[in-house]
């Protein structure tokens, strides 16, 4: 045995011989404290507490709108993750400039049959997050739409061919995409308020996004209106250094409610927890609650377990226990469950919402997510490794006829 191994052995023995501290409390004290803990005194939650699959399917049927200028329309997009949640939209083809009517049909039992309809006229929605493989052939553009005075990010998937045609082959930035397409979103057909385009001009100056508000704009009516505008801008123009609200002369906008506006720093709101958001029309989408403050994506994950207010519902069961490991290097955040987490105890829609919500929350910091000690994810999710980095929440495709 060489010297080093002898030293290791002696060191190990010394470490083992070190006096061991004891908990001096008696058993009754420890037990009495546990008995007072409300977490151990509530009735066990039923696996089916979350909304039933059928209801979830209806809740997932959310969007149905179109780009008026396109010969096709905005539709739900969907991956294969939860076929029972199939939501199918059909529309009458139109050459009019005005948004066309959608007729919605949802058949949870016969999703396969529904899918057999003309692919150019039908589409299905994503279960919450848009992943790169879902967006092949499309240019994603996330925009903050409005419902119940909250900004809901929706990822519009614009066919690459359409973008190429509209921009002459140049690669458009967010401002270009917004100015080109925001007027053509049938927000109300999607179940949102008619909010876009912003009442003013949107431009880019270096790394800043500048919106010069038009006289008589509607954003000064209340503190809530200002807040909604700011939230919508953050959802639409993430990635900019600053968002500047200005009047027509280029001075900081002066609101009756809040005075002169300060620059908005979208990146300061990157670690925001996602929740399930029930829209006015009764459908459910994923949405971040910008009022929730988290210092990092790990803290944001824990915030996702509890209800922040009546609009936002948690997508992670409160009684799930896990640790979030932030990467020292690399781009993958790890969620490690204390005990095996079985996604099969949830409906596929709920499970997909939980996975997507967590993936989107991690993505706020540019991190992919990896689940450890979790099993039975819905079809379409491979939890054996990190999930791809989602491009955005709540996908809607624009289908064009050939």
């Amino acid at each position, binding site marked *: 045995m060489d010297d080093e191994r002898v*030293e*290791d052995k002696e*060191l*190990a023995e010394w*470490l*083992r011989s*070190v*006096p*061991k*501290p*004891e*908990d001096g*409390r008696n*058993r009754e004290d*420890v*037990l009495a*404290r*546990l*008995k007072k*803990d409300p*977490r*151990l*005194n509530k009735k066990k939650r039923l696996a089916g507490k979350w909304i039933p699959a059928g209801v979830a399917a209806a809740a997932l049927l959310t969007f149905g709108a179109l780009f008026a200028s396109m010969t096709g329309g905005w539709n739900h997009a969907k991956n294969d993750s939860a076929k029972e949640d199939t939501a199918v939209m059909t529309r009458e083809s139109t050459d009019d400039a005005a948004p066309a009517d959608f007729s919605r049909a949802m058949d949870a039992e016969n999703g396969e049959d529904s899918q057999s309809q003309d692919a150019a006229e039908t589409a299905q929605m994503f279960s919450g997050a848009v992943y790169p493989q879902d967006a092949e052939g499309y240019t994603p553009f996330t925009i903050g739409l409005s419902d119940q005075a909250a900004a809901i990010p929706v990822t519009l998937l614009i066919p690459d061919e359409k973008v190429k045609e509209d921009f002459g082959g140049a690669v458009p930035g967010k401002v270009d995409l917004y100015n080109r397409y925001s007027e053509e979103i049938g927000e109300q057909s999607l179940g949102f308020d008619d909010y876009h385009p912003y009442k003013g001009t949107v431009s880019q100056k270096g790394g800043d996004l500048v919106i010069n508000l038009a006289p008589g704009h509607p954003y000064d009516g209340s503190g809530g209106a200002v807040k909604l505008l700011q939230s919508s801008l953050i959802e639409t123009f993430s990635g900019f250094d600053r968002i500047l609200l200005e009047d027509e002369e280029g001075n900081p906008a002066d609101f009756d409610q809040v005075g002169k506006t300060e620059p908005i720093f979208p990146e300061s709101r990157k670690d925001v927890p996602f929740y399930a958001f029930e829209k006015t029309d009764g459908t459910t989408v994923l949405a971040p609650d910008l009022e929730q403050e988290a*210092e*990092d994506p*790990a*803290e944001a994950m824990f915030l996702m377990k509890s209800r922040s207010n009546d609009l936002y519902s948690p997508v992670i069961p409160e*009684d799930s*226990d*896990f*640790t*979030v*490991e*932030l990467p*020292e290097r690399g781009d993958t955040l790890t969620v*490690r469950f*204390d*005990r*095996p987490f079985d996604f099969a105890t949830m409906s596929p829609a709920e499970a997909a919402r939980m996975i997507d919500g967590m993936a989107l929350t991690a993505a706020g910091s540019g991190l992919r997510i990896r689940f*450890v000690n979790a099993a039975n994810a819905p079809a379409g999710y491979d939890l054996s490794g990190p999930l791809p980095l989602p491009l955005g929440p709540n996908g809607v495709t624009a289908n064009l006829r050939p």
Partner: protein
Amino acid sequence: MEDSVFHRIYDEYHQDVFRFLIYMTKDRALSEDLVHEVYVRVLKSYGSFEGKSSEKTWLFSIARNVAIDHFRKSSVRRRRIDDSYDWDTRQPESAEPTPEEKAVREDELGRVLGMLEHCTDDQRLVVIARFLQELSVAETAEVLGWTQAKVKTTQHRALKALRSLMAVPGEKEAEENGR
């Protein structure tokens, strides 16, 4: 809440789990709080424990997660005060030694824990698990979610680091005090 489960866990593992948390935090009062949190998690999930790992390693895994959660949250709290805190490079540590911690540091255990502060997180974990908790290599691997090869490699490096620290007693502490 199943009292019988509590009593059995208490009889078999309470002191071990408490020690593990003392080693991790160097704070008795905090360890009492965290051991409570371990019990909460254990009692909530005991019904679904499938026995794929041993009960002992399952418990230590939970204790480890509870400790990591604590460090993460306390680091976040401190970072709110000190914007210069660098999550990627800083090691979690208690802000100021408590009177209890000072007392602990004066004895032999304190000397070990003091040296462990100069090790990496992984090295500290493996020394605590292998030598202070006296878990086997296989048990340590299970608790930490590592391969056994990683346990052995990290253990080797940890002992090397400790030998180095013991060769220059007080040097690191003097260095710290001189800052």
